[in-house]
């Protein structure tokens, strides 16, 4: 029963956070500028069009009514304007781009496969690479191997993604001419070309995170291995691989799960920098395009979408915690 209660608790908590984030986004972006219609209209914006957009957005309404319409749109969809000329936006409605004449939700969905491909591929690389490197460093603590791995980690953490990306393009794209320097091929179209075009972005995106995971893994591992129960396990005569595998690694799972969920969630909302460097038109690029066109509906929509993904990722991490860690159910 306590676990069910915990799940409900967390679900409600996530819902409230999402509501607050949505309201905050609305307040910051729609109430602050002098005329949100001006932003939504895009450039160039003729007076006729501005009047039209104002009518569609209902900016003449009271702010609480606008907020209500905005939130209701996310849950049940909404109509911009009224009558025959109304534009319908299906739930979840994150807004409507008058410039692109499409709902923000469908704009995001059309870009999402690219961001998902980029993020998940990189996530596999950094999880495997980072954890393996951290384990090796911990097991060889104080040796040259440890120093090399940790030196590489602090270098990887300190190197900005876009610098690594550009150097990678320079080396593998231009000088060696072995990898494409950008572009995206859908997975459904040609899986081999899909992977071929993404190898460099995956590696570049994975490096910084792999370095952080390596440091975390090493730190946790050293901490765990100094505990009494590890000494007991060794004293019992368990072999070293069993000690490390069964007792050591188990303690890594919890902190790494949370971090992994949050990192992936953060990137799914738009891997802005990597997308820009490699010319991948994902969600992050959609945002940057919207910024240069001052298409505020898209800007707000993508921000909300990214925040929602992070909240959901946190929720999933919390829930997996309750499955992985038997102590959690008891706490509530």
């Amino acid at each position, binding site marked *: 029963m306590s676990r069910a209660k915990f799940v409900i608790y967390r679900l409600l908590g996530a819902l409230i956070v999402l509501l607050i984030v949505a309201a905050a986004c609305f307040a910051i972006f729609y109430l602050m500028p002098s005329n949100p219609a001006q932003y939504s209209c895009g450039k160039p914006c003729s007076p006729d069009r501005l009047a039209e957009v104002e009518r569609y957005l209902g900016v003449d309404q009271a702010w609480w009514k606008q907020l209500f319409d905005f939130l209701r749109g996310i849950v049940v969809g909404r109509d911009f304007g009224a009558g025959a000329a109304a534009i319908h936006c299906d739930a979840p409605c994150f807004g409507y781009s008058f410039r692109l004449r499409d709902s923000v939700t469908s704009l995001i969905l059309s870009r999402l496969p690219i961001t998902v491909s980029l993020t998940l591929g*990189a996530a596999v690389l950094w999880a495997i690479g980072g954890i393996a490197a951290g384990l090796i460093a911990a097991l060889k603590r104080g040796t040259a191997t440890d120093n090399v791995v940790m030196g590489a980690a602090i270098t990887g953490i*300190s190197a900005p993604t876009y610098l690594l990306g550009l150097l990678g393009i320079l080396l593998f794209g231009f000088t060696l001419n072995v990898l494409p320097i950008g572009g995206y091929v859908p997975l459904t179209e040609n899986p081999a070309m899909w992977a071929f075009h993404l190898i460099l972005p995956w590696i570049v995106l994975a490096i910084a995170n792999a370095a*952080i995971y390596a440091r975390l893994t090493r730190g946790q591992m050293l901490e765990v291995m100094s505990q009494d129960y590890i000494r007991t396990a060794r004293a019992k005569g368990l072999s070293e691989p069993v000690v490390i595998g069964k007792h050591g690694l188990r303690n890594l799972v919890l902190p790494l799960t949370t971090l992994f969920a949050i990192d992936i969630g953060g990137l799914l909302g738009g891997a802005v920098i990597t997308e820009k460097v490699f010319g991948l038109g994902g969600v992050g690029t959609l945002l940057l395009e919207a910024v240069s066109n001052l298409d505020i509906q898209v800007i707000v929509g993508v921000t909300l979408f990214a925040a929602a993904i992070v909240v959901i990722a946190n929720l999933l991490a919390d829930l997996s915690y309750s499955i992985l860690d038997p102590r959690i159910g008891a706490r509530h």
Partner: protein
Amino acid sequence: MTAASQGPAERVPAQRTRRDSVWVRLLRSRASVTGLVLVLVFILLALLAPVFSALTGNSPLSYNSDLLGPDTAPAGPFGGISTQHWFGVEPRTGRDLFAIVSYGAQVSLLIGLAATLVSIVVGVIVGLVAGFYGGFADRLLSRLTDVIFGFPFLIFAIALSATVPASVPRTLLLILVIGFFGWPSIARVVRSETLSLKERGFVRAAAAQGTGSARIIIREIFPNILATIIVFTTVSIPGKIGAEAALSFLGVGVNPPTPSWGRSISDAISWVQVDPMYLIFPGMALFLVTLGFNMFGDGLRDALDPAEARSESAAPIEPVSTGGQP
């Protein structure tokens, strides 16, 4: 294990011996000395930017089209490096790249340090209040911390910079935005240290004597978490510098013609094949200053608290990052 766990009576002498050994330990580590030297080099570079500019007669704003080839790339090898232009010149404009990098250091360090200050102040206050008062304040602040910690900072900062009126100075906006999203990690650490300090004898003794909450926080708790705050400040700086560079890289940072490493790197994208040095100099500057702060911060953490360094050095809330949030 540290001064953080010592009572008020021992505190003064204990800190003196500890401070001595901190410096000894710090300077014994080659990595932290390297880091310190790198940091000092960049601080000097930033401070002396006008001096260099006066010496060479190069301003980061003056165009030199005579130094460019017909394709508007710098004439001469390695991006036009010469005794007059140590790092060569910028393609298309012929502006001196050394002047751009050194004045860029001013922008980077100013925004990085000021944003760090903002986030440390907010984080310490939130952490102290949540940890000391507990209850509802703690629940509310901890939840807020979780939300901000997970918030897609880069996305939000991009969105904000597009909609904030141009009348707000960019530097100030960047300091506030970067600083505001940086406080959750320090808040969590301060909270947990405050929680454990609150239960210690000397704090309870002070409370029993009728000392007020504010006074206990300032006189008893704060001095004992100062070491942690110093370490966190150091390791937070590179992330903030990286955040400014990332935003400038994405075209939503400081406005031209104010030099910025991130913008130079972004401009270098279209020149990377013809003039790679245009990428290398600002890029290496950003990389080295980040590396310097990270190495120094690691060393400082180990020196201040060797026993805890192992586990703490890689806690999930570790703020060490490029801010080049991918």
